[in-house]
């Protein structure tokens, strides 16, 4: 039942404001041409031929953008691309004839080479972003070739069995629900639909109340003032008081309704924007590290901060006002026409011109506001970059450079705002001019009509009143225009975040695992970051309770391996198994409760030391916190802080030394009693004496849990059951300290280098 008015409102708003925006969705030119290419190719398939996979190519031989497509069918490899004179060129190779397809990575681009008799026969070029797709395409190709070669009917059948609809899913398109941002904004308001309806009703009443005064004025002039002036009838004076009383009543009513309306609508706006802020932040928390690696903090801050603010302003002030104005507008036009059609036409003459102007200015403004929001983000990004890095700035005496950087960002903001203001400053006075034009016409036509006795002076006065209001409304509608475009641009930026699909838990097995035994197995693991193959094939099985030392030169991929074990990233190839289960099938949160992680760059949150130690287990008792701190050899220095465990650590733990931060983060990891303890250079910033102490404490604690420790100071890993030596994304050696030394390989080299440094 309450859905009804809400729905009507929704539709009304839809029709009134947003229609043009919706129609102007850009048609996607590129999909168009790939579709054409695909159609061309498919027209050439023979009857018993199926499409298995396809790969879009991006570049021609001169590295200009040029769309083409390679299609793998059950029998052939087809290549289609548009030629210069808009024809389609088409080539094909029988799969059994193709010797090999090879992927050549060339940095920002990559090529797929078709090799025939050891020679390069043909090449397709793609941008790096498509390398993964190309990889998958090649895999499909090899599989199909194998199937054809073996000519095995059974295999063929198996392929038919699982080769269903998923073959064409274009994983590049991850756009969520679309639609005008403002319409989606309305959906955010749905939980408060009663407030919405109430706000709307109050607005309606407010509009009605505003109509009373001019109406009374008409009567006042015709029935009181004019007779009073011409005749000398004393009785009429009483009417003046009555009218004055009515007018006062109308004014008070208008005031009260306005008050109630503003209150209700502001409440609504606050709730909607708070929900947007919360949902955006909650959504951010679900996104993977990959997303944050790409995004700038300042940009996200300004999206959650100032963009939601724009929206709040829009809803609280402009949206409902706009609706009431539109109603007012039509009611007025109705009254005017009813009172006197001739005068009404004269008065409303300029209105269509205004309508046209509004439409012209709108797109302009929207672009401007979007640019302004982006500029704002850019400035925030500069701030979030520079303020935490202020020590580096000072150390290198680069203050002026940062000032210039900020200035540039700030200038960008005022440039974009200037652009909006230029449009704006023209628009508002224009509306005023039109108001005056309307008024002059009303006076002129009205005087003529009064002279010819077509209307009374009272009606003319009423008209002038109405017209004033009318154009006054027009002006506020034009303000709405700006605010709506700004809100629309902002809403778009927020939905951009909300529409990002969390890319981590893809095949969410949601398998609850509880406490793990601690067996971790890497099986043919490869990982690619963009175009770079960072992990090039790792096979490693870690037994429950084992302590593994990971060593190797900087950049070898040690941290990356640990990231994979934590499932911060997913492998590109191969699998990570935990207790024999693929990590991708396990509920991520459930799994991570097993992890105690000490990062290479320990990060502490703003808060007290105790809060930071208990971060992973907020309900920890004080005894547990102290025990963890003792184990991490942090207890003594904590007590030297002014407030002991209650001391604030400052933002990012700035008030502590590097080694102190490390020890607190070790305590934090130990407190949750993890089944898998990961120490990435956990003690690199503490002195050797303290490191030895921590090590001794850890020796007790590593019992019963799997530990992966990374260290450059090789002595730290004396207690490790096995040392794994990595180099360039691969495991090059495995064994105990002594065995590895005797082996005189990479480890021996690293050890030798270290000894030289320490004994110099």
């Amino acid at each position: 039942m309450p859905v009804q008015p809400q729905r009507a409102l929704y539709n009304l708003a839809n029709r009134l404001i947003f229609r043009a925006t919706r129609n102007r969705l850009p048609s996607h030119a590129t999909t168009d041409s790939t579709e054409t290419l695909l159609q061309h190719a498919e027209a050439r398939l023979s009857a018993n031929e199926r499409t298995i996979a396809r790969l879009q190519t991006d570049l021609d031989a001169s590295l200009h953008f040029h769309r083409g497509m390679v299609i793998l069918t059950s029998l052939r490899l087809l290549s289609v691309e548009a030629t210069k004179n808009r024809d389609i060129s088409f080539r094909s190779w029988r799969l059994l004839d193709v010797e090999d397809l090879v992927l050549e990575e060339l940095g920002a681009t990559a090529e797929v080479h078709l090799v025939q008799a050891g020679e390069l026969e043909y090449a397709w070029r793609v941008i790096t972003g498509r390398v993964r797709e190309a990889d998958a395409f090649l895999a499909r190709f090899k599989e199909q070739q194998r199937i054809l070669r073996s000519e095995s009917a059974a295999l063929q059948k198996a392929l038919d069995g699982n080769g269903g609809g998923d073959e064409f899913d274009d994983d590049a398109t991850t756009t969520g629900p679309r639609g005008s941002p403002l319409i989606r904004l309305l959906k955010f308001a749905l939980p408060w639909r009663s407030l919405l309806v109430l706000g709307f009703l109050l607005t309606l009443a407010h509009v009605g109340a505003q109509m009373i005064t001019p109406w009374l004025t008409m009567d006042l002039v015709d029935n009181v003032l004019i007779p009073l002036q011409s005749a000398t009838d004393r009785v009429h004076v009483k009417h003046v008081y009555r009218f004055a009383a009515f007018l006062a009543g109308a004014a008070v009513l208008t005031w009260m309704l306005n008050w109630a309306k503003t209150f209700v609508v502001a409440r609504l706006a606050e709730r909607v924007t708070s929900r947007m802020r919360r949902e955006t932040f909650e959504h951010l928390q679900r996104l993977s590290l990959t997303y944050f690696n790409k995004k700038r903090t300042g940009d996200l801050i300004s999206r959650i901060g100032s963009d939601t603010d724009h929206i709040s302003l829009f809803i609280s002030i402009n949206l409902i006002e706009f609706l009431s104005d539109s109603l007012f507008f039509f009611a007025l036009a109705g009254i005017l026409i009813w009172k006197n059609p001739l005068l009404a036409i004269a008065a409303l003459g300029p209105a269509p011109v205004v309508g046209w102007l509004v439409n012209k200015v709108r797109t302009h403004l929207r672009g401007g506001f979007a640019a302004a929001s982006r500029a704002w983000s850019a400035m925030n990004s500069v701030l979030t970059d520079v303020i935490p890095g202020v020590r580096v700035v000072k150390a290198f005496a680069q203050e002026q450079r940062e000032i210039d950087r900020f200035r540039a960002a700030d200038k960008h903001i005022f440039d974009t705002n200037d652009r909006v203001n230029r449009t704006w400053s023209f628009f508002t006075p224009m509306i005023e001019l039109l108001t005056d034009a309307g008024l002059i016409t009303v006076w002129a036509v009205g005087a003529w009509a009064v002279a010819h006795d077509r209307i009374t002076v009272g009606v003319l006065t009423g008209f002038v009143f109405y017209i004033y209001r009318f154009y006054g409304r027009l002006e506020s509608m034009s303000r709405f225009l700006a605010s709506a475009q700004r809100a629309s641009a902002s809403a778009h930026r927020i939905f951009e975040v909300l529409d990002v699909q969390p890319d981590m838990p893809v095949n969410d097995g949601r398998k609850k695992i509880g406490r793990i035994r601690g067996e971790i197995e890497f099986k043919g693991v490869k990982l690619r970051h963009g175009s770079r193959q960072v992990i090039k094939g790792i096979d490693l099985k870690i037994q429950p309770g084992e302590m593994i030392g990971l060593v190797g030169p900087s950049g070898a991929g040690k941290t990356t391996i640990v990231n994979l074990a934590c499932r911060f990233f997913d492998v590109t190839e191969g699998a990570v198994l935990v207790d024999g289960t693929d990590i991708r099938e396990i509920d991520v949160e459930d799994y991570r409760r097993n992890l105690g992680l000490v990062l290479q760059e320990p990060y502490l949150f703003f808060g007290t030391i105790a809060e930071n130690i208990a971060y992973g287990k907020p309900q920890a008792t004080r005894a547990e916190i102290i025990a963890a701190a003792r184990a991490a050899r942090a207890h003594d220095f904590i007590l030297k802080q002014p407030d002991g465990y209650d001391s604030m650590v400052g933002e990012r733990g700035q008030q502590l030394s590097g080694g102190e931060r490390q020890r607190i983060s070790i305590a934090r990891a130990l407190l949750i009693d993890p089944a898998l303890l990961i120490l990435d250079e956990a003690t690199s910033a503490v002195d050797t004496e303290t490191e030895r102490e921590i090590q001794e404490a850890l020796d007790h604690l590593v019992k019963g849990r799997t530990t992966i420790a990374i260290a450059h100071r090789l002595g730290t890993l004396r207690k490790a059951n096995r040392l794994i030596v990595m180099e360039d994304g691969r495991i090059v050696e495995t064994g105990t300290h002594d065995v590895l030394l005797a082996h005189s390989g990479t480890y021996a080299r690293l050890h030798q280098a270290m000894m030289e440094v320490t004994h110099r």
Partner: protein
Amino acid sequence: MSAAFDLSTDTSGRLVFVDPAGTRHQNVRPLRMFPLTEPNHWISLQDASGREVGCIEDPSKLSEAQLTALRMALAKRDFVPVIRTIHRVARAADGHEWQVTTDRGPTKFRTENDEAIQSLGGARFVIIDDHNTRYLIPNVEDLDRDSRRKLERYY
């Protein structure tokens, strides 16, 4: 463990601690581990060089004499006035000037920035002045209405 150690005050008013192993530590300093959130539990005892020699989780389990000795030693070391009333908070050139009445009498102090007022969870607050003295507000709700209003602007 409470039976296994002893606390006393020597003739010059310093704390003496005999640990469970029987070793006698002269002039130990008691230190609250959680001076703001749990001031009455978890007292660390340190020797002159800052090494921890003992730890008392719950002083209420001590004997009367031990407790008095501990209390006296603690009182000398800690000075955390509890704010009862806030009379005035004025914006000064760099920070704020406060006029308050505490459990140790009326006083004035200055804070430097907004971070000087810290929430300790719930209604518990601590204000750190520019001399690093800590003023505790155990429960904002217990302040009078006027004081609360004045504080509200800053957290």
